[in-house]
């Protein structure tokens, strides 16, 4: 096959990149080699536009065992246990085929976690759809939710937390990010770095088909009007086979026969073999005749670029082949030695006794292009709207409209489609600020949550970046967990656009500042660029997934009110910031102005104080204040607990909308037992923590004194109906 300009373009490579390939090879590549380069050099595998920015993120603290650079990050949780976790995007495939796209997204992230020797114990997801009025949205929502559930439920790992948002910016490009969390013994962690020459390279799992040929390149190209044509590349997930693969791998890992192991994710056999060889500073030889194929007459090109799911590559210690094969036979899975490690640092592929590709490993990895793309700053938007004069707006109606809107409605419709209880260690299912998963057979737990806020990030990326880290941190604190580390999925538009690149660079600056201040490092993550269509980019949407430790899970608290007659305190100062708020968006249809400011000092003080109160058993329930403001958070504490609250307007209140809908950061609502109130007040004073007593819990009624009162059952109905009616 002739390598024309068109062929090069179809492979997502620029002419300059092609020239570089020829330089590195000192000759023209053949089409197989070109395919391999295109897979390794695309944005998804090479991080060519993002690397220089990602390097800025803090990646260490005293709990971190493994930061970015492996299949997933790892933190120490004591007692010889460690938690492995990572988040990854499957945006483009999910837009094309929502069920399979979302399902294979879950499958992929699970492999990243069990590859490291961990048994997955929880799944999370962050999903973003276009506006509900968009005709595609309903199908996409249904497909994605059942795909996520279909995979997780079948394999038997509880899906315990997530977030679902609607915004017109995702009309033509939805976001599906999946996060997996696993548990491993600290001394039983497996890595992808190859070691030793002449070791067997083994292919295990499903057979290779023509699935998703060039999926990784697809994930790095914008949609355009003929994205229809790209459709056949969608992969079909087989959670049943993944379950077998997971059990077989974990069984093999009990023994000492694995040198290194790597899942075949994006760019399949190509990226897994190159990554293992590159990390081990050696080469690899593969005999493609041996690759188990599902279809007849598959070409080397197809085998190397197939993205068939549920496959792994393993490098074995000498002489362990038979023992290992027995385990895979038991689970009815393919197990084939397809090659070996070699001293020459090359990827050498053989097919029908010919050498069909011969590429220096470095050319595919460390020599891949890296770009310092141009970017522009986003100025802090001015405060133009005047929110002082809202006389015509009815407070109660606005409040009810917000809690019955797509974005703020109860998500039961979704979470009931996920098995949240399998494995029997789910102490807190989704619905609270974070989920709590017990460490099996131990009196210890972790809290996990994912967060994003695209409106804030769009308005001002540095502040937005800080804000999501803080919000995620707050969510873990609210469950009584000490936040340890995060993973992040950075969903952005086209990086060749300077404004988008600027959003990316500045979001990272924001994330970095917050992570450093809170000692909350990044241990893994994923970048998804080219989200958008025909030059219209999505709002910058970084998603943060956090993990925290709970030492004594039996004292567990959540956001639900516990008793009648208790005081509810608002911790943190309210300024009444309405720009970019749910109120401004949903009620006034105003999307301008800056996001709420982040004050890291207050954030940390308030959070640590709340955590201390929880530790000392002085609070009954905790909820952070986020989108929708205080009134929405209070409503959430009522709904589900069936306990109401009588909210008192603070003295000197001049704008009820600003006070109750304002989205100022660093705030928590806490319920204090009557008998502990004095003690808590003293502590607040001693620690100089700003607070107000905002209400008293009561039976049945959710009430704002002097404004309105509504029955909890009624409120709950209003909050529940959106999904069921959509």
């Amino acid at each position: 096959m002739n390598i024309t300009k068109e062929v090069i373009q179809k492979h997502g490579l620029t002419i300059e990149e092609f020239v570089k390939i020829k330089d590195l090879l000192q000759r023209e590549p053949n089409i197989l080699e070109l395919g391999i380069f295109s897979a390794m050099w695309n944005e998804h595998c090479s991080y060519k536009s993002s690397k220089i920015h990602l390097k800025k993120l803090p990646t260490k603290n005293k709990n971190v065992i493994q930061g970015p650079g492996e299949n997933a990050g790892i933190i120490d949780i004591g007692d010889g246990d460690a938690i492995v976790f990572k988040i990854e995007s499957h945006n483009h495939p999910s837009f094309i085929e929502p069920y399979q796209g979302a399902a294979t997204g879950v499958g992929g992230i699970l492999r990243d976690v069990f590859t490291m020797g961990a048994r997955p114990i929880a799944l999370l997801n962050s999903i973003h759809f276009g506006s509900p009025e968009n005709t595609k949205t309903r199908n996409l929502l249904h497909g994605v939710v059942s795909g996520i559930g279909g995979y997780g439920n079948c394999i038997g790992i509880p899906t315990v937390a997530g977030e679902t948002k609607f915004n017109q910016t995702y009309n033509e490009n939805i976001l599906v990010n999946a996060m997996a969390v696993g548990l491993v013994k600290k001394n039983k962690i497996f890595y992808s770095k190859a070691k030793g020459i002449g070791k067997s390279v083994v292919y295990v799992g499903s057979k290779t088909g023509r699935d998703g040929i060039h999926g990784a390149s697809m994930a790095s190209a914008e949609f355009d009007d003929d994205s229809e044509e790209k459709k056949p590349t969608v992969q079909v997930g087989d959670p049943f086979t993944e379950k077998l693969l997971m059990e077989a791998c974990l069984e093999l890992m009990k023994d000492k026969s694995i040198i290194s192991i790597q899942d075949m994710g994006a760019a399949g056999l190509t990226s897994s073999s190159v990554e293992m060889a590159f990390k081990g500073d050696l080469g690899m030889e593969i005999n493609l005749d041996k690759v188990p194929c599902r279809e007849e007459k598959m070409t080397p090109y197809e085998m190397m670029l197939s993205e068939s799911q549920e496959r792994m590559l393993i490098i074995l210690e000498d002489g362990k082949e038979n023992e290992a094969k027995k385990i895979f036979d038991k689970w009815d899975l393919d197990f084939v030695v397809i090659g070996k490690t070699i001293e020459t640092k090359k990827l050498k592929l053989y097919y029908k006794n010919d050498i069909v590709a011969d590429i220096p490993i470095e050319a595919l990895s460390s020599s891949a292009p890296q770009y310092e793309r141009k970017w522009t700053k986003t100025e802090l938007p001015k405060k133009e709207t005047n929110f002082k004069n809202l006389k015509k707006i009815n407070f109660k109606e606005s409040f009810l409209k917000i809690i019955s809107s797509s974005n703020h409605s109860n998500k039961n419709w979704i979470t009931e489609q996920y098995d949240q209880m399998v494995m029997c260690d789910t102490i807190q299912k989704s619905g609270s600020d974070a989920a709590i998963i017990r460490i099996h057979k131990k009196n210890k737990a972790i809290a996990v949550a994912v967060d994003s806020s695209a409106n804030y990030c769009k308005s001002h990326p540095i502040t937005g970046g800080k804000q999501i880290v803080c919000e995620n941190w707050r969510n873990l604190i609210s469950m009584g967990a000490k936040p340890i580390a995060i993973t992040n999925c950075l969903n952005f538009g086209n990086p060749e656009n300077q404004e988008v690149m600027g959003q990316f660079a500045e979001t990272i600056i924001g994330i970095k500042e917050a992570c450093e201040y809170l000692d909350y490092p990044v241990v893994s993550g994923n970048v998804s660029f080219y989200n958008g269509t025909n030059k219209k980019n999505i709002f910058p949407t970084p998603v943060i997934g956090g993990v925290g430790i709970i030492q004594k899970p039996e004292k567990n608290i959540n956001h639900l009110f516990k008793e009648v007659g208790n005081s509810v305190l608002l911790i943190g100062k309210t300024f009444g910031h309405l720009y970019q708020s749910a109120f401004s968006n949903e009620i006034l249809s105003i999307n301008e102005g800056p996001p709420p400011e982040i004050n890291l000092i207050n954030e940390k003080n308030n959070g640590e104080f709340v955590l201390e109160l929880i530790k000392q058993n002085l609070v009954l329930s905790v909820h952070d204040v986020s989108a929708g403001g205080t009134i929405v958070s209070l409503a959430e504490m009522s709904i589900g607990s069936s306990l109401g609250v009588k909210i008192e307007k603070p003295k000197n209140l001049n704008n009820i909308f600003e006070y109750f809908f304002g989205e100022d950061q660093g705030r928590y609502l806490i319920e204090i037992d009557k008998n502990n109130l004095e003690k808590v007040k003293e502590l607040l004073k001693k620690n100089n923590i700003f607070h107000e007593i905002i209400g008293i819990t009561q039976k049945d009624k959710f009430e704002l004194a002097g404004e309105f009162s509504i029955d909890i059952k009624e409120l709950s109905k209003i909050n529940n109906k959106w999904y069921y009616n959509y």
Partner: protein
Amino acid sequence: MNSSVIVFPGSNCDRDIAVALEKMQFKNKLVWHKDTNLPKSDLIVIPGGFSYGDYLRSGAIAAKSKIINEVIKAANEGCLVLGVCNGFQILIETGLLKGALLRNKNLKFINKDVSLKVNSINNKFCKKYKLGQIIKLNIAHNEGNYFTNKDHLKELEDNNLIAFKYCDEKGFINQNSNPNGSVNNIAGIFNKNKNILGMMPHPERMIEKSVSGDDGISLFSSLLN
């Protein structure tokens, strides 16, 4: 008491139910589906999950496995057999229990805590419950919509062969308290001899008050002697 939990490829509540049995002092063994010998057991449990991916019909393929012949033999000799969720579906496919488990009426997977009314206590499985007691267990299934013909339904009702019915918190049994469309709100049934129980809700998920609830304990403790 000796118990055996049968593990099929795709079972995923095997560990959960083993933990529950061990907690209740059963001497439990996990039995791999390719085994042809069943250890001597007083109780055989077929756990929940997605045996063979639930492909074709849930439970259909597991019902053709080698070990199932041993289970059928033991069951016919009077051994106690408990099938939970996918285990219930498998028991139906083997013919040990009659009827069918169709797709949930809303065609969606449903995971939630449900209220159940204990409908029959004159048997080895439920004797520690009170008749009419309302308990809370967790369901998690796609195909739990129990269906059977009129004659069999009558037989089930007349002979006290319905173990649990879905109800609301106050105990009312009606369409609103029926999560999946099951005929007569049936959540679990016995065979004629009452040595086999198939049920969609998961008792093993409710054995600890501090985690999720403990209404499942009485089922296991009933079996103990």
